[in-house]
């Protein structure tokens, strides 16, 4: 440590000079999402190879009785609507926070969390009753791979939502300070948008 540091031990670092108008946490979450998109991209690449390049005779493949595996697209569509709704409720919560409406913030967060939880539980039940398992050809691998990876993101997202909800009830967000809310919200929107892509790829195409 230099003489300068010793002489000035009683104050901390100089005020940070921000060279960009974007908030570091917001930029950080956007870069993180870029990385996440690439992670999903690697799963979609595996899907592409197994579905297109490997030229499967039948997609979805036939089960023991000679009937193609059925993908529960209707249940998943309802689940999709639930998740998309949660994107609107978290947006509502953020707007409410910015307007100083604490009750709106809290209600929005609780609703978002419950919708997300419903989505995840529905998916668990769907896995349980779906009628095929991970070892049933590359079709099942990509199905469980993509929906499972997304399910992990919903789980992490729920933990973040839980933290945000707790903080909302403790009054830690205000119209002036809501970056924590915004960053978590951006992540949740990402999880929702990614689901739509996963849904179309896995259940519809």
């Amino acid at each position: 440590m230099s003489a300068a540091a010793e002489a000035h031990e009683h104050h901390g670092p100089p005020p940070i000079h921000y060279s960009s108008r974007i908030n570091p946490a917001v930029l950080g979450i956007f870069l993180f999402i870029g990385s996440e998109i690439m992670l999903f991209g690697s799963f979609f690449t595996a899907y592409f190879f197994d579905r297109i390049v490997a030229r499967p005779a039948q997609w979805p493949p036939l089960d023991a009785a000679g009937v193609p595996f059925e993908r529960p697209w209707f249940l998943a569509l309802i689940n999709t609507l639930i998740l998309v709704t949660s994107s609107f409720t978290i947006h509502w919560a953020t707007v409410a926070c910015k307007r100083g409406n604490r009750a709106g913030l809290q209600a929005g967060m609780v609703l978002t969390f419950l919708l997300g939880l419903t989505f995840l539980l529905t998916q668990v039940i769907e896995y349980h009753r779906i009628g095929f398992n991970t070892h049933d050809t590359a079709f099942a691998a990509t199905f469980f791979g993509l929906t499972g990876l997304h399910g992990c993101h919903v789980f992490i997202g729920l933990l973040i939502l839980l933290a945000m909800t707790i903080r909302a009830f403790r009054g830690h967000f205000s119209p002036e300070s809501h970056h924590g809310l915004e960053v978590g919200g951006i992540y949740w929107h990402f999880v929702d948008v990614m689901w739509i892509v996963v849904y179309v790829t896995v259940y519809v195409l």
Partner: protein
Amino acid sequence: MTSVAHDHHHAPASPSGLRKFTAPGWYRVLWTTPLVGLIGLGIVGLIRSAAGWDPVWKSGPLATVGTVSFPMGLLIGLGGFDFWTYYASGKKTRPESHDGHGATSWKDYFRINTDHKVIGIQYTVTTMFFFVVSGLMALLFRAELAKPGDQYFNPQTFNILVTEHAILMILLVIIPAFAGLGNIVIPLMIGASDMAFPKLNALSYWLLPIAGITFMAGMFAPGGGPSAGWTCYAPLCAHQPMGNIFFNMAVQWGGASSIMTALNFLVTIITMRAPGMTFWRMPLLVWANFSTSLLVVLATPFIAGSQFFELFDRVMHTNFFEASGGGYVLGYQHIFWFYSHPAVYIMLLPGFGIISEVIAVMSRKPIFGYRLMALSLLAILVLGFSVWAHHMYVAGMAGWLRVPMMASTLLIAVPTGIKIFSWLATMWNGKINFNTPMLWATGFIATFVIGGLSGVWLGAVSIDIPVSSTYFIVAHIHYVLFGGSVFTIFTGIYYWYPKVTGRMYNEKLGKLHFWMTFIGFNATFFPMHYLGTQGMPRRVADYAPRFHDLNAFASIASYFLGASTAIFLFNMIWSWTKGEVVGSNPWRAMTLEWQVSSPPPIFNFEEVPQIVGGPYEFGVPGARHAILGSAQAEPVATGGH
């Protein structure tokens, strides 16, 4: 760091009694690691018994979860998540008392520490530890290769050593060594007091030893270590012993560490530059780390994905790459190389930045073609994503992919050539000071040109096909990763050593280290070009007797090369306490890190500096890079002529 004890700044007196076991630190690690680790294993057992799967305790799932849960316990014990759990649960987070800043004793390097300079040292020392470990592995299998036939290791052990040597050198030495040097230097160079996310920075360092230990634990896994080569090709890898699970998971830890650091670098560089530090005034090292970090953030998820698929194929019996179940075997190689080719640039671009700094400063001349130097980094970044399949010419992929991949591969020689010629033009007519960093920098150019040219050869389909999987590949990769990356790491370590320690390394030993490495390196690896063209296959413990002479020569040379590392380590350790004390700017450089004391003050700058010019205006009358606060203002001698 000198031992000026200010309890005010540093961790409060260590807690006593039982509090020791609840405060973040190694005492807490003692119980959190087994607790969280066993909880993870217990959950596996619970799920499996609930689902009625037999056996309930199965080694594959247990190893998969265990390589996550035990390290998580370690991180929780160390306090890596304390801030976020406090924040998330809505508790009052501890006010920033700067507890985690600076280091007063060696013990502070074994804690979660948020000071970028401490983290940089943690990174660099860790990478040097693994450099020695995986270097010793190389010496072991060079002993085996000294003559044909089986001497010391059976083929399986030989392959384990080769695999571990390669993956440790790549993921635990070269990539994090640049993260370490970048950590020390980037905030200083752009005039910031720390990184944008110091707590994330501390956490991302601690993922690194976890990755290293997991890789090495894999060697001793029941059934045998990972032996499928560092590329871990499917489906071979999924059918190998259990050590490969450790391999797959360690890649995830190393990759996560790498992504988090890169994200931190990017946010720091974008949002925390000092006033006046426009992108076109940034030192080239900052530019280099900026482009590398973009590459890491975008490419690393692909290796994570490839290792996940392999893990699923083994543990969950999926068929991503199993042809028998409709999977596409070559998919693994495509996904793997989509990361691992850009990874070559992740391992080189920061080195290019270091070389640019050293060559400009030691030649006392402005860097030649500054803007093109920066833009060529971005060109390599973009092109780097378009060449992955040149690793797969003989893999049986679609034939039409070959020529486009060859074209883009050869195209990369253009931005790389721009850099080489700009360095040479910078040195042209310069007042060159051939001290240790400059010797390493020029040695780098010599060896890297050889490696780069053999890379151009290998990019050509017609040459690549006959030499695929021969020692020609081994020679090429060592010329770019040792003669390229490792040489730049040594350049950086010698160049910033006086800044980090406040003392100068021993110049004679530094030069001896360089010459021994340079000669030993070329003597070891140059003959492998010839061996490769003669058809000696790589990754095989035995070889035909006609290859004996050159292999014996390479083995002897490799021991000479290994001995040079001992000199380096002695020099570093001895000089840290006994070296000559030097002032803040022994190289008379203009970049900001040299304008503060050595070692730098705890918060780097008293006031945010004002940037007024480019970083390399040596010999330009009246040129200045930065204006610092009154206490630190020492005008820099810019003259070189």
